[in-house]
């Protein structure tokens, strides 16, 4: 790959993002991963590109050279993905007993089974749309799969007519077939194609095809106009089908494709011609089929954190020390314990929390509901601008609102991206506040796949800051002074620039400064420039950037001392940790924010310092481990390529695997300690009366 933009001071962010997906694809093609694990990664590549076309491509002007370059590079990767799937993975899956059955190969029993299924469950959901020369082309739903048919009057006629049928989302994409030995399935579009005659009675069906469109989804809402945000968002979701089509994936004869191209109004270079396996994201659900353990990665079971979950007095524990929990090595149950303890405790007065991408039927929401029932003041900030999850978020928000919680829908103009939970508790010595600060969403599902950090603490100064932060988010207060927290968009970038500058100022040849930072994306030009300057002053800068990185490392005279690695492995690297050597007075911060303009300027984000000496050491060590990885690590080269780290004679070290091992040991150790602790019976503390509200 050669791009002109590479000659610049920064890498282009869109192309850098495509490179990230190249690394994901490499993981999908890494034979050391079992077949179904590889299939998962293939699915991720697909869904990543879906989002990319919707969100990013929509922002590139069509006239920019980048516009066609993005298509060229993206399609080249997607072509590679399709080919790999068809030529390598499909045969492997067949060997393992997972096989797609094509209509012509259906046996009688299977046909009968499908016919029943089609007539009873699928047909009622189908709505054919005619494509007329003289009528507007039907409006195609974003990311929906369609079947296109050539429809002919039964008597021979001249004009070719087409009809479109949306494949219903309610139906499974893959339908399991009754069969003796293997897991046989058929794709729903094949079923619809096979029984299409039922749909077009009195007509003849000619050739068929499949297609899918991707629309730009970046929408702006006039937030000042309407106070009811939930209504506003529902509206925004509906209008998504109006935005322009940016990509057409099609698997159909050329004349059909031409008609479609004209219909949706798209250029040739925006058309991706598939070969039989559209929407691999849907297909990748096969990886989650029960069974087939032999071709799956052994499932990682997050380890419980006994000191949190087993402790009889979680508040006492947190008064004594800070607790660090690292998903998915440590289990989400630690947070659930925290929130349910708060909901149940008669002395807890209030709970405040941000919710952003909660899971379905979230136990977090259950706990909050319970807290409301118990008369606590529950304030929840629901972020409705979380990409593509809005419908779900709105539903959860309404549920809490009905229960009696104060539900606020984010701050106008700013997306709430920080993850923070505050518990206010009345204690004999006064009000005590307990906090959870994290980098990950309150979502038990993603907590099993995303690597995220969580800090539980009761530090007073942090708690006061978090209270202020909630007052800021709820609109109750203007930004005030924060003692410990740094908050975007109120000075987070400035703080980081200051930290980088301080490192530059203190660095000496004898004792060079050191910055180690781990994040998902590095885009912000001001920060990049500061890092360049730091490097030029002699500061060593070690960056672990999983995704987009616009910084060019290792360029002589510009960034000699900067090194960038990216880890792409079974868990999605998601935590943001920043280390500054500060002439020996080391400082470590954890944040919800990537170093991107959107995080600094258009989102409510938090960065908090790690003050517990032990945890600080632990995180410093953790940061180092990411640079030791020689199995799943990629090094970013000055020209923009990523190269898999060469192992040479070194011992294999895979950081995620290492952390799994460590989590098991930790849990065992904690269990042992807990069982050793003497637990004398204590008289129960008298239950204080609840306060009148």
């Amino acid at each position: 790959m050669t791009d002109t933009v590479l000659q610049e001071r920064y890498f282009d962010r869109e192309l850098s993002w495509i490179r990230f997906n190249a690394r994901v694809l490499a993981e999908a093609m890494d034979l050391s991963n079992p077949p179904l694990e590889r299939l998962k990664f293939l699915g991720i590549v697909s869904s990543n590109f879906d989002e990319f076309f919707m969100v990013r491509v929509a922002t590139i002007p069509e006239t920019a050279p980048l516009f066609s370059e993005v298509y060229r590079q993206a399609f080249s990767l997607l072509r590679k993905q399709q080919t790999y799937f068809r030529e390598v993975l499909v045969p492997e899956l067949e060997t393992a007993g997972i096989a797609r059955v094509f209509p012509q190969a259906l046996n009688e029993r299977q046909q009968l089974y499908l016919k029943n299924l089609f007539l009873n469950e699928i047909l009622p959901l189908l709505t054919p749309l005619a494509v007329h020369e003289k009528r507007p082309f039907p409006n195609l739903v974003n990311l929906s799969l369609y079947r296109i048919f050539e429809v002919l009057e039964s008597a021979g006629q001249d004009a070719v007519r087409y009809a479109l049928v949306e494949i219903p989302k309610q139906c499974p994409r893959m339908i399991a077939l009754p069969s003796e030995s293997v897991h046989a399935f058929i794709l729903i579009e094949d079923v619809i194609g096979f029984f299409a005659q039922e749909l077009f009675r009195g007509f003849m069906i000619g050739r068929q095809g499949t297609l899918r469109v991707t629309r730009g989804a970046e929408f702006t809402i006039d937030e000042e106009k309407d106070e009811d945000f939930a209504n506003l968002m529902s509206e925004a979701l509906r209008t998504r089908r109006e935005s322009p089509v940016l990509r057409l994936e099609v698997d159909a004869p050329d004349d059909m494709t031409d008609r479609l191209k004209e219909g949706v109004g798209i250029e040739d270079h925006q058309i991706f011609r598939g070969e039989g396996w559209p929407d691999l994201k849907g297909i990748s659900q096969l990886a989650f089929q029960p069974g087939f353990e032999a071709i799956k990665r052994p499932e990682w079971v997050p380890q419980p954190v006994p000191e949190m979950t087993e402790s009889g007095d979680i508040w006492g524990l947190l008064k004594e020390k800070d607790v660090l929990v690292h998903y998915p090595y440590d289990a989400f149950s630690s947070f659930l314990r925290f929130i349910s303890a708060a909901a149940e405790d008669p002395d807890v007065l209030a709970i405040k929390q941000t919710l952003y991408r909660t899971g379905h039927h979230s136990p977090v929401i259950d706990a909050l509901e319970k807290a409301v029932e118990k008369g606590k003041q529950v304030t929840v900030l629901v972020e409705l601008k979380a990409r593509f999850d809005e419908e779900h978020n709105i539903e959860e928000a309404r549920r809490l609102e009905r229960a009696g919680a104060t539900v606020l829908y984010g701050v106008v103009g700013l997306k709430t991206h920080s993850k923070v939970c505050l518990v206010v508790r009345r204690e004999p010595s006064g009000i005590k506040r307990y906090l959870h600060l994290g980098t990950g969403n309150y979502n038990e599902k993603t907590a099993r796949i995303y690597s995220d950090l969580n800090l539980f603490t009761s530090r007073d100064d942090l708690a006061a800051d978090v209270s202020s932060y909630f007052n800021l988010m709820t609109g109750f207060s203007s930004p005030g002074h924060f003692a410990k927290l740094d908050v975007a968009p109120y000075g987070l970038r400035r703080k980081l620039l200051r930290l980088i500058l301080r490192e530059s100022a203190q660095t000496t040849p004898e004792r060079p400064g050191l910055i180690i930072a781990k994040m998902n994306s590095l885009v912000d030009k001001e920060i990049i420039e500061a890092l360049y300057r730091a490097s030029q002053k002699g500061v060593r800068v070690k960056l672990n950037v999983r995704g987009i990185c616009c910084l060019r490392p290792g360029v002589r005279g510009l960034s000699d001392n900067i090194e960038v690695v990216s880890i792409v492995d079974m868990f999605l690297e998601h935590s943001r940790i920043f280390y500054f050597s500060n002439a020996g007075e080391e400082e470590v911060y954890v944040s919800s924010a990537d170093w991107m303009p959107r995080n600094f300027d258009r989102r409510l984000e938090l960065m908090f310092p790690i003050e517990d000496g032990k945890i600080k050491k632990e995180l410093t060590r953790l940061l180092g481990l990411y640079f030791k990885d020689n199995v799943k690590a990629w090094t970013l080269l000055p020209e923009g390529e990523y190269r898999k780290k060469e192992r040479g004679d070194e011992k294999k070290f895979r950081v995620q695997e290492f952390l799994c091992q460590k989590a098991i040991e930790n849990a065992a150790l904690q269990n042992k300690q807990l069982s050793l602790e003497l637990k004398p019976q204590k008289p129960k503390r008298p239950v204080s009366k609840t306060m009148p509200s």
Partner: protein
Amino acid sequence: MSDPEIPTKHIAAVIDIGTIAIRMVIAEVGGKNEIRYLEQLQKPVRFGKDVFKTGRLGSIAMRQGVNILRDFKSVIDAYGIKRIHAIATSAVREAQNRDNFIDQIYVRAGIEVEILDGSEENRLQLVAVEHALEGRIDLEKKNCLIVEVGSGSTEMIFMDQGQVSVTRTLPIGSVRLPEQGAAARGDEDFIQRVLKKSIRDITKNVAREVPMERIDTFIALGGDMRFVSQQLLPDTADRFTILERKEFVGFVGRVGKMTPEEIATQYSLDYGHAESLYPALLFYLNFLNTTEAEEIIIPKLSIRDGLLLEMAQVVSGYKRTDVSRQVLNSAHHLGTKYMYDKGHAVCVASLALKLFDSLAKDHGMGPRERLLLEVSGILHDIGTYISSSGHHKHSFYLVDASEIFGLRQTDKNIIANVVRYHRRVPPRETHVPYMSLAKSDRAIVSKLASILRVADALDTAHQQKIRSFTLERSEDAYALWVSKDSGDISLERESLRRKGDMFADVFGAPIDLKQGVPPAA
């Protein structure tokens, strides 16, 4: 004050409804007056724009204020707080329709708001200053000016060797420039000239009482100065910072070169604050320039902290700031200004207090009234500065027009009336200043004035012959016994006969002066 639900600590909310912002602090107070802050909120308002132009709060401003307070209330409710102290200062204080606003707040947000007048602000300022400097800077050895430039008013407190001498509440502030024309933005030089002139006028006026060149300590309260301190000396852990004059001058210069937009972005301030920052700093600078101080002491506390501290002091009884001492200092300073007979004033005040204490069961008044009586004793004769004939009436308006540290307008109304009735006719229904007092205050005036008359009679010769007495109460009469050492007291007895009539009226029995040892004692 026991509150079984919160065993050892007391949570309080203090709300300050200002001119450009409404602020709230929630804190635990108690123990040794320490304050543990739980929440600090602020929300900008534009009350000044309405009140200083039209004299009234507009309906939009009122609605906005009520909504903010409703939000604040929900934060308060999360803690189950019952102790809410809400005060309103300059803009609301001066709004003609302030009562409607306060009623709206009560009805819709459930918060009772008290209007704080300038002298009470002074009191809270002093509490905050003393707490901030506690043990670190000894004000007893300094001549000091405390200034707080607010948005709609400016407070000045002068302290001479630790004693409050003069206080001033000025109707100018950072959004209320001395000449409204100066508000025409953009012309910084003009604003600067106007400020300079008006502050020179103010200090010239003050200089008659306080020699400005002797002021060696400049203490600046207020959010704008705390902001400066945060910018220039961010890492100080103390409750105050000390800023050198030239550093401050440099900072003001830098801010002066920026537009409000730039200030807002650079320092993450809301626009209202950004807009008023420069004028506020210019005020401080001009005040500073009238003194000899080379540095500025910036306490990190505000009057909200002052309120919390007062609450803490009530709760704990620990180290109460001696406000009454400063009230008396300020009263004496006023006396000096009007060339009072100090010996007489002190003697009358002390005799009056003695009588007050001896009559505790009969009058049912408390420490506040006692303080008002003492101040009245000090000031009762200042009217003679104008003319000795009808001097009680001169005393009345001099007190009415003067500022006395720590006393609110209602307090001063009582004192003015008490000095008015320290001689000649007792209150009548035709006396408007008396009748315009609240009924309960009229009773206080009568009781205090009748006591003051007796005390004044005992020193009618201004020779302090009688310095003490013993009160004897019988069924139908009071007797004041003084020692034989007092010499001839016939003059005093005669005087008491004339001035004691009001006492007899008020307390229901005549009072007589006797020499020797009371029979029971």
